[in-house]
């Protein structure tokens, strides 16, 4: 029985919207159902409008899903990294420093904000480990992490000076009288770019007899062996070769640039090497895109037989 006091809401009202949507979706309460039926009975225009919506919906109900292409699953599985990004190398320190810099990345997909997390301690420990056994070896490192797109600096530490043989501690730099190596990195995610720059200012062996420092750094995505950057520098009296090898299909290498500004590497190439003569001050930088959360850059520092590893992970 229709309530004589009932007045149908205006067609654009929230109540009308709820009634129409609810009726189409079949989730009206009994009271709403009553109001809806009252509206239909009282207003031919409302009733006609609803019938047309139902007609459209019936068309949708006849639509069937298209089967995914038969090769799609194989393509997806082939594109997956070899391991999940959480499967970190066992050599990494178990504990992370408390002061990990984190920052939410706007616009990321997921149920929680993506963060950039630096396993900074590993780098510092490695630098310290590399410096301590060889007082004559010079090493300085700076790490800067920022978002290129937003310009937000999420974490930084830079240079300092320690005595040969001393532990680097909480700063990312070490240096002795014989030379220095500077590592600078910018890790970004999404619209961001990863930059890794290593500068090797090598002493002249003639001025430092008996010294043979060698630095080897390798950057890899820990979960994907197809990307690999390798750099080697040393002053053993022989020319030193710096080598970077990447798979352009996986990582977009933007540039390889000598510090004098000469661009020596293009995105199309997958391998580049640079020879440094003893005593020569050489340096290079390269940048590559890492647009996927979960990307990680692993850097190996090797001095003679000693290999140390650090990891920068974005997830």
């Amino acid at each position: 029985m229709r309530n004589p006091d009932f007045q149908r809401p205006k067609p654009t009202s929230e109540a009308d919207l709820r009634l129409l949507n609810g009726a189409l979706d079949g989730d009206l309460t009994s009271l709403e159902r009553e109001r809806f039926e009252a509206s239909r009975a009282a207003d031919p225009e409302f009733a006609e409008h609803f019938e047309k919506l139902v007609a459209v919906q019936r068309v949708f109900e006849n639509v069937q899903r298209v089967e995914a292409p038969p090769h799609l699953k194989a393509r997806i599985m082939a594109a997956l990294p070899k391991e999940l990004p959480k499967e970190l190398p066992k050599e990494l320190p178990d504990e992370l420093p408390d002061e990990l810099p984190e920052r939410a990345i706007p616009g990321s997909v997921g149920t929680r904000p993506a963060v950039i997390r630096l396993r900074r301690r590993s780098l510092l420990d490695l630098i310290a480990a590399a410096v301590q056994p060889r007082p004559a070896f010079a090493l300085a490192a700076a790490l800067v992490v920022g978002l290129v797109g937003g310009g937000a600096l999420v974490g930084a530490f830079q240079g300092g000076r320690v005595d040969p043989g001393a532990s680097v501690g909480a700063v990312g730099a070490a240096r002795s009288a014989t030379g220095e190596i500077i590592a600078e990195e910018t890790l970004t995610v999404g619209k961001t770019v990863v930059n890794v720059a290593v500068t090797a200012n090598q002493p002249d062996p003639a001025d430092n007899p008996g010294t043979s420092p060698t630095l080897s750094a390798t950057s890899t995505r820990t979960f994907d062996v197809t990307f690999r950057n390798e750099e080697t520098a040393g002053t053993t009296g022989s020319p030193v070769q710096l080598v970077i090898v990447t798979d352009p299909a996986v990582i977009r290498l933007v540039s390889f640039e000598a510090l004098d500004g000469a661009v020596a590497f293009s995105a199309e190439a997958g391998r580049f090497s640079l020879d440094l003569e003893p005593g020569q001050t050489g340096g290079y930088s390269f940048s590559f895109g890492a647009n996927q959360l979960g990307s990680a850059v692993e850097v190996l520092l090797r001095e003679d037989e000693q290999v140390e590893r650090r990891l920068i992970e974005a997830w």
Partner: protein
Amino acid sequence: MAELSDPELVIRCRKGDRGAFEMLVDRYQTPVYNAALRILHDPLEAEDVSQCVFLKVYENLDSFDSKYKLFSWIYRIAVNESLNARKSRRRYEPLDDIPSGDRASGRQDDEDVIDRALGRLSPEDRAVVILKHLDGFSYNDIGFIMDWPNAKVKSRLYAARQHLKEIVLAQQVNPRA
């Protein structure tokens, strides 16, 4: 491998079980592909997006909050990826060359009507209609997928339905409309 529930799949995938992830792909590749196809109207692009979606799922499973449905979470990524791909394309498609795929011939007319009509909606309205009518998501699920409050889901769905009604009815009068 026996049939696993979504939560079980997530646990196994997080442990690096590729077989479990393969099962997850088996389970959701068709709806993901269809969502991308309906939004993008390009089978090749839909494949690209589908691959991208599952790669993101794989790499971000650790961040998946199990209080949500796995399918909704995957769909959220799929819709976002599709809309992003659509935006990056920055062009409007008249939908005259929509592929018919494996559709049953008897439904071809309806399919064409729907595809043409969807193509005239904004990408977001298109997505919400697809979620509701083709995939049967609830308002809450659509709200989660689109990151909209429920009231916005309802109002956008209503507006999209209105628009669709006008388009479909116009096409029935003039099929080339």
